[in-house]
């Protein structure tokens, strides 16, 4: 199948919606399957109301080798032939389409709700009053998969579960202590983020974007602003790009350091838990010195950044980070060089590279299994076009490998930030960002600390936002956690969970 001329969709470069090939659904399906068969990754797949009772389906695929994106479109009625049977990465996306748009992917093996909410992007009659009742929607109802047999038992945890943690429900089917399967039910944090991003004024929308996942403020606000800037043809200054890059890596540092500390705590290696816990705060405090908020709220804005990095601040940050580096490396070596820590982490919760590819896993869990995916390298943007951060990988795919990847990424992000702080480009922090072009599609990818963040935005004929699709890395990676558990002990779950450290809020939207 020979594709039409490439319409030029790239990370953060918008194209007219008319340039996206729109096919009859059978051909759309064949083309997407063909692209996935040729190694493209399905990074977003969603629907939006078209005229009448029809829904426009859009699939966005990434070619990581060429650094390009491609979009495919089809208009469907109340059902269409599902892609999932021939394309496992579509599994969760199609469940989401069924839930959001009330469109049925026929032949989907398990059309369970993703977040348990009434359709909020349905066309025509399906959107009308009474549709919810007709669909028999019930927030409290959910059919679990069950395994029967002698000595097989079920363990249910959540939504309110141990510690200070977001709500989610975990249902284990176990034989003795051995996990046979784990089903994860989410949606408790569902706040209707996509609808808010579609309907709110621009300076409210950026505050919503900062609150998609409160530990990924820079990652999500960065992708949000990049999509808006692409649609407005606004070009940031190199200085603003560098400041955003610094903030993104500080966010990665804070979270990776915190994760190593949490894992140390889980295996009862208290010294590292205490030291890393404190050092995580040092990174947050640097973000606060820059932006006035420990998570970097207020910094990333359409057209650039809300706060400049003054020479005095840059010098202070360099000094503090250099000290942090000196304190951090010995603690990481102490923890990961300790034989009893290694023994506890090794071989637990392993994911194979094949599973990572089949489920579309992104971020550190994919890289820990040797699947070298990193938006900063594959689809470089902003400052990462000029200052390359090497992709950090390991091969075993287990909890230890996820720790080793984090350790490596911590060191490389530290180097990057120290280097950037030493020579910030000139220019102002922020430029004008005007109205959005009508009838266009923009896709912004960012490598958040959890992995690939996708914001896909579609404008209507007036240049208003018609559809805003958010794909948090956790959307894919929760499936990875569920796939990593079988064969492990139930008591390994907390450790496994911490090594993924996924976002409930980012998934639930």
């Amino acid at each position, binding site marked *: 199948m020979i594709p039409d001329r490439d319409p030029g969709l790239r990370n953060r470069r918008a194209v007219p919606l008319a340039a996206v090939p729109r096919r009859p659904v059978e051909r759309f399906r064949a083309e997407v399957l063909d692209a996935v068969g040729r190694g493209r990754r399905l990074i977003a797949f969603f629907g939006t109301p078209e005229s009448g009772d029809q829904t426009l389906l859009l699939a966005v695929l990434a070619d990581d080798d060429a650094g390009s994106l491609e979009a495919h479109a089809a208009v469907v009625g109340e059902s269409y032939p599902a892609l999932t049977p021939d394309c496992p990465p579509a599994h969760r996306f199609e469940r989401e389409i069924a839930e959001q748009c009330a469109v049925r992917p026929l032949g989907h093996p398990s059309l369970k709700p993703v977040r348990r909410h009434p359709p909020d992007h349905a066309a025509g009659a399906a959107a009308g009053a009474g549709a919810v009742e007709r669909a028999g929607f019930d927030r409290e109802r959910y059919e679990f998969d069950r395994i029967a047999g002698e000595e097989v038992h079920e363990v249910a945890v959540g939504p309110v579960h141990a*510690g200070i943690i*977001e709500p989610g429900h975990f249902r284990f089917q176990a034989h003795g202590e051995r996990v046979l399967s784990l089903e994860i039910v989410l949606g408790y944090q569902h706040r209707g983020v996509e609808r808010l991003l579609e309907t709110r004024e621009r300076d409210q929308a950026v505050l919503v974007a900062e609150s998609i996942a409160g530990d990924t403020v820079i990652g999500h606000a960065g992708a949000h602003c990049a999509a808006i800037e692409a649609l407005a043809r606004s070009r940031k200054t190199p200085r603003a790009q560098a400041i955003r890059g610094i903030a993104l890596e500080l966010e990665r540092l804070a979270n990776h350091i915190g994760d190593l500390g949490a894992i140390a705590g889980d295996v009862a290696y208290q010294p590292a838990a205490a030291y890393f816990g404190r050092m995580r705060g040092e990174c947050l405090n640097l973000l606060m010195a820059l932006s006035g908020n420990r998570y970097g709220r207020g910094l990333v804005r359409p057209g650039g950044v809300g706060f400049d990095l003054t020479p005095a601040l840059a010098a202070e940050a360099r000094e503090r980070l250099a000290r942090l580096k000196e304190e951090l490396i010995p603690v990481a070596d102490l923890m990961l060089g300790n034989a009893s820590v290694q023994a506890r982490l090794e071989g637990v919760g392993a994911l194979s590279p094949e599973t990572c590819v089949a489920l579309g896993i992104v971020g550190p869990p994919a890289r820990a299994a040797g699947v070298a995916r990193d938006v900063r390298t594959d689809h470089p943007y902003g400052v990462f076009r000029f200052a390359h951060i090497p992709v950090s990988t390991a091969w075993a795919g287990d909890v230890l490998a996820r720790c080793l990847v984090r350790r490596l990424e911590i060191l490389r992000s530290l180097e990057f930030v120290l280097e950037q702080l030493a020579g910030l480009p000139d220019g102002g922090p922020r430029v004008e960002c005007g109205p959005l072009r009508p009838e266009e599609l923009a896709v912004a990818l960012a490598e958040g600390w959890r992995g690939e963040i996708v914001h896909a935005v579609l404008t209507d004929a007036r240049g208003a936002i018609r559809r805003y699709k958010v794909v948090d890395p956790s959307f894919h990676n929760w499936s990875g956690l569920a796939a990593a558990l079988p064969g492990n002990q139930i008591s390994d779950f907390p450790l496994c969970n911490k090594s993924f450290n996924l*976002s409930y809020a980012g998934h639930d939207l």
Partner: protein
Amino acid sequence: MLEFLRVRLRQGVRTSPFPRGGAELPERFRGRPVLDATRCDGGCAGCRARAPSALIQRGPDDRAVLDLGACLFAPEEAAACPNGAIRFSSDYRMATRARGDLVTPDGEVALARALDARMRRLFGRSLRLRSVAAGSCNGCEAELVALGNVVFDLARFGVQFVASPRHADGIVITGAVSANMRSALYRTWEATPEPRLVIAVGACAASGGPFRGSPEVGDGVPEDLPVDLWIPGCPPHPLTILDGLLRLLGRLDGGDAPGPGGAPRSKSG
């Protein structure tokens, strides 16, 4: 072993001396918002239309008043007044006992009073809390977790987060209360033995925060849950939470938490 001792020695003692000092915050920190009435034209409703949140409300005589419970601590909120009447101070202290106390004409608030003698006898030196995230972004929860690190070390005040509401003296609610968490929130509260405290942390719990008005959330903690302490912020700085908790427990005598400059104060602000 020697290497371990070397690292231990180098890490030193990092626990903050709070509440005796230890409240130094950077220049750009956005703390409690204040409104300078002399710069407010009054009757000019422009700020309410421009502000990206419900921070600025219509008060008596059409003058602007601030609702700290709805404040998202965003730079755009201060910029909403063209005369510069609104700015963020460096004061991190702003927790109150009543929701209404967060609504203020100038930004000054009646900081939380201590619990009555009986409740202080029960909880003053030992308080166990269960956290319930209900439609949040995980920002407030991250700061609740941070309270447990060696810097803030919440446990030194006898306050601890526990796994089960049945082991708890109260619940800490974060989030705008999503439709999907509503029943779990009530059941957690009912499972907490009486007498029990309810503490609402963050803009979402007080007003819906950035999600205010979404059909998938209530705009904060439902009115039939009796809240004992409101802690504004998006998310609140750990010191804001700590200050609120210690005031509630009567552990800050006469309000001598350090003021914005970091030095102890003799009078409460």
